[in-house]
């Protein structure tokens, strides 16, 4: 057993860290306050190859596995989760096209996304359908050689900035099987009837664009169906192991970023004529933060490894990593603010931002509660279902 990263992975980590320090750190607070999308830095990230690096080389990506993705996400989120999400989420939905898309779809969408020319989004949630994905009400009906989509989608990342969306909709309501009858359809944002309204006032990850998307008789050619008709939900389920591992990596990054900031501040801040890092109460906090981050990181790497190497274990490991790392992120950000004291309660120090950003990792891509259900289900051998 070997716990060392390869030379390539180490070099990747170092260069992504340099990118995040130089390009993201100086502008993070501004985009957080203004809730503005950082187009420029996303473009620079695309030049470096950071957008959808798991896309195969022939479609403009690097063909990276879940482990390299985790390394990249960790470094970006350690500096700023908001902009980190803009970069790591600029290709949301790419995996559906990679795995199930037609050759034409791959050639049209994937190189455009990896080059930063187009932004992609994945539209699943609805006002009434969050964790309960199969209760979605968005319909797509066949009319001649076109699909006609109607419905509304909620919490859609890249909603107002995206160029393409992979939309989950019901195409075959007559099928009684709970998991069938849904399809994934590629929708271009410039189609008539497509509208997106930015959701403002988010607690955290405010640089990232989130929107409610309205589909009002949106017509797309039948070739825009991604994969098999009626199999959309089952197709979607296949990527949860990867996407949840990615959220775990976000948590690891936030925990790491919080620990680094707390460590630095504790050594600078003096009270009673000595740095507060001399006090055992602070030392223990820092030790716990560091230990938890390390534990979360290796659980995340293990989950990432299992995605390729041991898919039977991947579902449970991904949920464990996601649940644990997101919890550790929230705890570490909380302790980082505590160590900063009053200074951490205002936005002069960016632990305040991390504190707000951390929470979302326990909510999106399956809440903590859903992850625990999955872990228990795998443990008890109940099979599919939540």
């Amino acid at each position, binding site marked *: 057993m070997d716990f060392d990263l390869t030379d390539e992975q180490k070099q990747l980590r170092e260069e992504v860290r340099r990118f995040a320090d130089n390009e993201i750190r100086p502008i993070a607070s501004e985009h957080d306050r203004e809730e503005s999308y950082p187009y420029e830095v996303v473009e620079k990230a695309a030049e470096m190859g950071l957008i959808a690096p798991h896309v195969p080389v022939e479609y403009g990506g*690097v063909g990276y596995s879940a482990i390299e993705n985790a390394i990249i996400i960790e470094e970006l989120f350690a500096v700023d989760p908001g902009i980190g999400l803009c970069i790591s989420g600029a290709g949301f939905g790419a995996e559906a096209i990679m795995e199930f898309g037609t050759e034409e779809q791959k050639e049209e969408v994937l190189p455009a996304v990896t080059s930063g020319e187009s932004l992609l989004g994945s539209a699943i949630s609805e006002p009434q359908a969050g964790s309960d994905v199969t209760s979605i009400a968005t319909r797509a009906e066949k009319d001649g050689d076109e699909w006609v989509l109607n419905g509304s989608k909620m919490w859609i990342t890249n909603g107002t900035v995206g160029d393409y969306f992979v939309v989950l909709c019901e195409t075959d309501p007559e099928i009684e099987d709970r998991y069938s009858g849904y399809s994934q359809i590629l929708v271009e944002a410039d189609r008539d009837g497509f509208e997106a309204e930015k959701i403002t006032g988010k607690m955290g990850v405010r640089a990232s664009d989130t929107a409610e998307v309205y589909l009002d008789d949106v017509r797309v050619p039948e070739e825009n169906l991604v994969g098999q008709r009626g199999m959309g939900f089952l197709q979607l389920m296949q990527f949860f192991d990867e996407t949840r591992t990615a959220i775990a990596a976000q948590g690891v990054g936030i925990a790491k970023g919080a620990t680094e900031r707390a460590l630095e501040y504790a050594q600078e801040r003096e009270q009673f004529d000595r740095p507060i890092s001399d006090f055992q109460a602070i030392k223990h906090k820092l030790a716990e933060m560091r230990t938890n981050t390390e534990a979360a990181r290796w659980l995340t790497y293990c989950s990432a490894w299992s995605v390729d190497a041991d898919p039977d274990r991947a579902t449970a490991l991904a949920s464990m990593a996601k649940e644990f790392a997101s919890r550790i992120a929230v705890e570490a950000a909380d302790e980082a603010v505590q160590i900063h004291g009053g200074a951490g309660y205002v936005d002069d120090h960016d632990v305040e931002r991390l504190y707000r950003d951390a929470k979302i990792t326990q909510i999106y891509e399956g809440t903590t509660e859903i992850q625990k259900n999955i872990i228990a289900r795998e443990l008890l051998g109940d099979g599919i279902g939540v």
Partner: protein
Amino acid sequence: MKVLVTVKEVAEVGDDFAIEGTEIAESDLEYDLNEWDDYAIEAGVRLAEDGIADEVVALTIGPERSEETIRMALAKGADRAVRVWDDAIADSFLDVDTKVDLLEAVVDEEEPDLVLTGVQAADDAFGATGVALAERIGFEHAAVVNDLELDADAGVANVRRELEGGVEELTEVDVPAVLTVQTGLNEPRYASLRGIRQAQRKEIATKDLADVGLSPDDVEGALTVTSMYEPESESDAEIIEGDADEAAGRLAEVLREKGVEA
């Protein structure tokens, strides 16, 4: 045209470090690519991208650890690398003359048309290696170059040099030449993810003293470090921050404190 870029892995220290004898404690050192060399690599890679250079070779003198640094040059686009090291080198303090001995041997073998070096290294900061190498190998040279246009057909490098006192010199240098590169010559890129992947498969040829035709006696430098200490600061510098109003206010306050009256 073949371009040789010399790169160095430099040691960096934070605010707190310990001195052990005539050295800074190894545990307080971090290693990174010399900043000036980053600009030299970028210049070399751009010459290749513009179709002027056929091959860009990175050259370093350093222990195995420095392969991490030189691999960054490969990830940014250098085609291959040469690393010179020997236990005998590790035992002595490398002065400029000794470095030039080692570099000269590789230049003789590689026969580049253009050698790019950083103006200086961030650690020992001699700022002499590039020009000393030019003298030794009989190349033209220009130091502190902050703009470069290469006319390959005419065999001339049009360069702008940054001199003291804000003076800049525009000059022509006949190729083959050594140019020592100042920061600001270009904007060094980040290594792309694809570049990082490709770099793992690029060649780093290692050479010891025998390979470059030198003996341990040749690398016994004329310089030895006799002591290492942290100079005591005699006064503090204050950097005034804030907008113009605040900064002017604070400046007036300081001047008044120091006894300057209107």
